[in-house]
């Protein structure tokens, strides 16, 4: 039997002039969560219905960078900051060559943007990229719902489109999302003396830029590429979308690489993969960390750093094997933010030292990695 959708008293609120052309008819849009909760707003961006995992992010700036982050693959993103699109969208470069989010939900967006570098309005950009968006929604109410319930599947229904049945909503986590965002063929970048294998599981472009700046050669390889029989000086595992357990192939090569002594550095999904390869376990967080203000303490020191994060899974601290140790811990909720080997130069962080968007406080970790690479 089909599930009934509960209609809340929610009505669309907000800008009536949010279209570039005020004569254009506003199209209504609904957000329907898997539990039936419905929010009503107005459509902007591409006017096509979609579904995915609904998550929220609390960053206040850097929306083009966030929307192009491959880790958001398959997710409908709710922005808690109510005004989005104020400075339009520039030509980039951003974090990948496309908008990765499945859909966008905001309180209010600015059709009338203002910035020297802007070439599109947010709506124009999303339309061009085929990504639907909704404004006029109480995003705080929606966020609280997700916080209390945990992330949920949901859909954006444009105008008079027929909503999907709840059971028919596509769970992106059962797909191999990484395969969708990883590169297909290896690419060689830079011409440094040392060579880094960078496993692209949906790698943010700024990671490449951060490595490149430090004068190394980068061989960017697909997620399932076997690098074990090649010469390299350092191994890097990138961020990416979805459940790390989907990437058994990547974990297999990594486990082999860990038998050696060459430096290995992982970020975000890469950190979870290193945990799994080392023998730890991962689990899904209730509603994940998607923000630019996550404090992370470096264990055993008095230091605490502000970090950007975008993840729904984490390494379970209790399962960290004994030749590994906790490196960083989240100062808010105590979750694992980084692990490292007690003897070998293997280390990883759950947060994003490459930032974009967000604070640049931990970019020094790239120096740390390259320094280790240069020592061998």
């Amino acid at each position, binding site marked *: 039997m089909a599930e009934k959708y509960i209609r809340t008293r929610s009505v669309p609120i907000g800008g009536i002039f949010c279209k570039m052309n005020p004569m254009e008819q506003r199209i209504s849009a609904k957000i329907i969560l898997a539990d039936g909760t419905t929010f009503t707003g107005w459509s902007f961006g591409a006017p096509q219905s979609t579904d995915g995992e609904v998550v929220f992010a609390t960053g206040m700036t850097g929306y083009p960078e966030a929307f192009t982050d491959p880790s958001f693959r398959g997710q409908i993103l709710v922005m808690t*900051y109510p005004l989005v699109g104020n400075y339009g969208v520039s030509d980039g470069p951003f974090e990948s060559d496309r908008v990765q989010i499945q859909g966008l939900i905001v309180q209010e967006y600015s059709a009338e943007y203002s910035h020297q570098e802007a070439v599109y309005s947010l709506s124009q950009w999303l339309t061009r990229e085929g990504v639907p968006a909704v404004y006029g929604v109480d995003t705080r109410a929606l966020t609280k719902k997700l*916080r209390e319930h945990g992330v949920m599947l949901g859909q954006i229904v444009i105008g008079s489109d027929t909503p999907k049945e709840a059971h028919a909503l596509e769970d992106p986590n059962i797909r191999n999302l990484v395969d969708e965002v990883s590169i297909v063929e290896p690419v060689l970048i830079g011409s440094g003396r040392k060579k880094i294998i960078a496993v692209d599981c949906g790698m943010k472009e700024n990671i490449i830029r951060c490595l490149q700046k430090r004068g190394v050669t980068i061989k960017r390889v697909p997620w399932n590429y076997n690098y074990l029989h090649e010469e390299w000086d350092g191994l890097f595992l990138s961020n990416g979308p979805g459940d790390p357990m989907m990437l058994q192939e990547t974990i297999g090569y990594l486990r082999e690489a860990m038998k050696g002594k060459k430096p290995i550095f992982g970020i975000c999904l890469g950190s979870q993969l290193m945990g799994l390869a080392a023998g730890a376990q991962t689990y899904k967080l209730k509603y994940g960390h998607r923000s630019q203000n996550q404090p992370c303490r470096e264990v055993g020191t008095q230091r*605490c750093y*502000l970090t950007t994060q975008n993840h729904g899974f984490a390494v379970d601290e209790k399962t960290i094997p004994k030749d590994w140790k906790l490196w960083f811990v989240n100062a808010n909720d105590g979750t694992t933010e980084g692990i490292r080997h007690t003897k070998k130069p293997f280390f990883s962080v759950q947060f994003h030292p490459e930032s974009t968007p*967000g604070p640049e406080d931990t970019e020094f970790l790239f120096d740390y990695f390259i320094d280790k690479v240069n020592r061998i």
Partner: protein
Amino acid sequence: MNKMKKPKKVLILGSGGLRIGQAGEFDYSGSQAIKALKEEGIYTVLVNPNIATVQTNSDMADRVYFLPLTKEFVEQVIVKEKPDALFLSFGGQTALNVGLELEDAGVLKKHGVRVLGTSTDTIRTTEDRQLFAEALKSIDVDVAESYAVKTLDAGLRAAKKIGFPLMIRSAYSLGGKGSGKISSEEELAQRLNEAFTSVPQVLLEEYLGGWKEIEYEVVRDQFDNCVTVCNMENFDPMGIHTGESIVVAPSQTLNNHEYHLLRSIAQKTVRHLGVIGECNIQYALNPKTSEYRVIEINARLSRSSALASKATGYPLAWVAAKLALGYALFEVQNMVTQTTQACFEPALDYVAVKMPRWDLTKFKAANRRIGSEMKSVGEVMAIGRTFREAIQKAVRMLHIGAEGVVCNDFDIADPLDEIVHPTDRRLFAIPVVMHAGVTVKELHNMTGIDPWFLHQLKEIVDVQNMMKYAKRLDTELMRTAKAYGFSDRQIAKLRKTDEAKIRAARKKFGILPVVKQIDTLAGEFPARTNYLYMTYNGSEHDVERDDHSLLVLGSGPYRIGSSVEFDWCCVQAVQSAHAKGYRTIMLNCNPETVSTDFDICDRLYFEELTLERVLDIEEFEHPEGVVVSMGGQIPNNLALPLHELGVPIVGTSPKDIDRAEDRRKFSKLLDRIGVEQPKWRELTTVTAARKFASTVGYPVLIRPSYVLSGAAMNIAYSPEALDQYLQQAADVSQKHPVVISKFIENAREIEVDGVAQNGELVIYAFTEHVENAGVHSGDATSVMPPQKSYLETIRRIKKITRAVVAELHITGPFNIQFLAKKNQLRVIELNLRASRSFPFVSKAAKYNFIDLATRTMLGDDIRGEYNTVDLDYVVVKAPQFSYSRIKGADPVLYVEMSSTGEVACFGEQYHEAFLKSLLAAELVLPKKNIFLSIGRDENKAKLARSVEKLHKMGYRLYGTENTVKFLRKEYGVPITQLHKISEKKSPTILDYIEKRKIDFMIIIPRTLNRQTVSDGYHIRRAAIDHNIPLISNVQLAQTFVDALYTLQVYKQPLQIKAWDEYKKNGE
């Protein structure tokens, strides 16, 4: 926490009287610091003469000294108290300066007092432009280039380095003269030549006009952990002081690169400088190139940090105090969420808009233009889910008669002029020209305001038009208008109906605001926050109503006449209600206050103090009562309308409040109970006004109900003057009557502040003004207990007070002002609410009047014995002025209030308390040369004895022609004549002032008028601009000279005694 020994006793320096540029925010920061120390069990000693602050309450610091914040006084406190540490960063520039002086003089080293938090070396670096620029350049951080030059050649050389255009600024600028944009070498040469004729030095600076102005608030601990708590963007670009700007948090038009570029530089800079605690950094950002310049760094709590704290919910002052004690950031709890810690950066899910409150029309002859100097006296902060909603709310919060960004009745003759040359009304001029078809692009070119902000305003204007021309006000239009921040009154105006009808229609449509929490984490974690706002851009409440609650209406923006005193009353009322078991709800919109702190009430609505919003909150919360008598005139004015709508008001009935507020009703009431008042009449024609004035005899006091410009009240000594003032009053008509009353000269003024219970007088305090009537009570120097009034006068005042209290069935606080002349008493004003002087009388008499008032309003029986007259000490309250900030304003005591704050000091006897109090209000004692100019022979005679005393004490005296003649001839006092400016003979007084040959001035105007063309005005103004102490009132001058004589001849010392060391009789 480690590596630092926890101090045992900490001395905290406050900021003294409120003045422009240094206001109530330091009560907030100082109070937080004291609480943070007390939580650690550290003994706290506070020096602050601002008696109306919460931080000087008896339950705050362990010891309070109401003493001037000068090196000499603080040094003596150190000698006496032997603290082992000092907090400098919580009392604004005043505390910082005193701290640095103490260090320079070796006092801190000698007595083993260490400065906690940011080191004095760091502070010095940030205070000195040269050191600051060098420090930043050494870490490749860009600062605006600036050169101080003393010659034409040096100027031209500097210009080569800076390039054109550049800014020229006079180092000692008068009235902003000599500053401006220079585009070529020829122009520069000409301007320099001009400038050097009057000033020795000018500053040449890089021109940053049109750049965005951005601020960051940074916190750092001793372990080098560093977070930027908030960033803020000024609506007004560079060129307008941030204190004069509309400021938005977080920034709206910065992309990720710009936001984090500035954030990273802020952290790099703060780390390099070694700040521990809180720091504010200001940038100019070129919108075309993303280039930046660091403009300024404040290595202390500031006005901006108070704003940032309230805008984000992050308790900056509390955290800064903990970090100064040696804690790491992550060891300090986030007091708002109570689940996370302080090492994070708040994520906002709303927009906060700050607007300055100016009172420029209160200062006669003051210029309305705003610019690089701060003139605003207060501010408000509005919170919304869109910028449009927030800015419309902010405008209403100012209580300047504006309904929002649009729908105002201001008559702006040349709106484009006020846009291009900004005035305090620029925001209201923008919609006016938008209606006339001026585009966003054109406005951006004229003002440099980012087009994003202008588009937002344009959308408000568009909705205004829709509302105006729509055939029907349907649900969708109503919802849109509310989401755009329109008030019911604005909508009513556009639909030509009244507020109540719109409210009813709106409720029928089911359009109600929702209550949202400010939780610092954008909903990411559940938070136990009490911090709330209302919005129409939402569909769900974050909270449910509270049972057994009491709503206290706050005082709104600080402005002339309503300041920290009322916030003190509100905080006390909340605390007393809380002690009685109520869930307390505070409503206020002023980010500088303690009442809006996270730990004061059970619920804080950071909201508008308008009828509409109070009703919204009342309907949501259903409080058991609403307190309107603590926040001054704004809530007082809401009493009757709220009462008529059935809202339960506690204390004196709003009907009786109205009988006191309505001039006619009150006058009749006084007649009936046989109490005298100066004769008055409300008149609607000029002829009637003249006729009445000649009947009662001149001088008369004129109060127009509608004023175009200039001060509202005036005293006319002649029919000609009356005509002139009535002309100024724009239009005297049926609609705008003028109130004329007999002005009684040479009368003394006595005030009674009291609390009554069911029409029975319970506790009262008398304060006597030093100045005769004619000086606004807020500008008067007052003394408690009275020094000159006869027992009989006091007895009769008490009797009249009892009669008034009974007649109006007062329950709660009230204030009555009396004129006393030749045994005749007249009532001139009654307020059925707490008055400005309640904190003063409470602390002077050592009974908390507001606690008593709140308790009786909530039903307690507070009757008992209270001794407020028989004190073994004297307390004097003195006004604090900010004339130096308001260029052109006439610094003379007058019927219109112009002081921005007040201080009070205790003494064993009158003269000691008086002198301390004046010193605390920043008066500097004369060293050698005193200048006298005394208008009217009557005043000359009154002051002759005092002048003789000055001569006896060895002062060298100078005077104007008539003053000199009179004093020489009649009293034989040796006095040198100086010429008035208009005499065109030298040496003029101005020469002496400019050459600093005069170090004190007594200038008594002929009449209690402000004549800005007079010589007296020019001399008084020159005194202010050259920082020379000035007394302009006869009684004040007499008392001052007597007090000086007591100090210098009788060698009565100014004692260093804490508040608790002044005992009442028999204790």
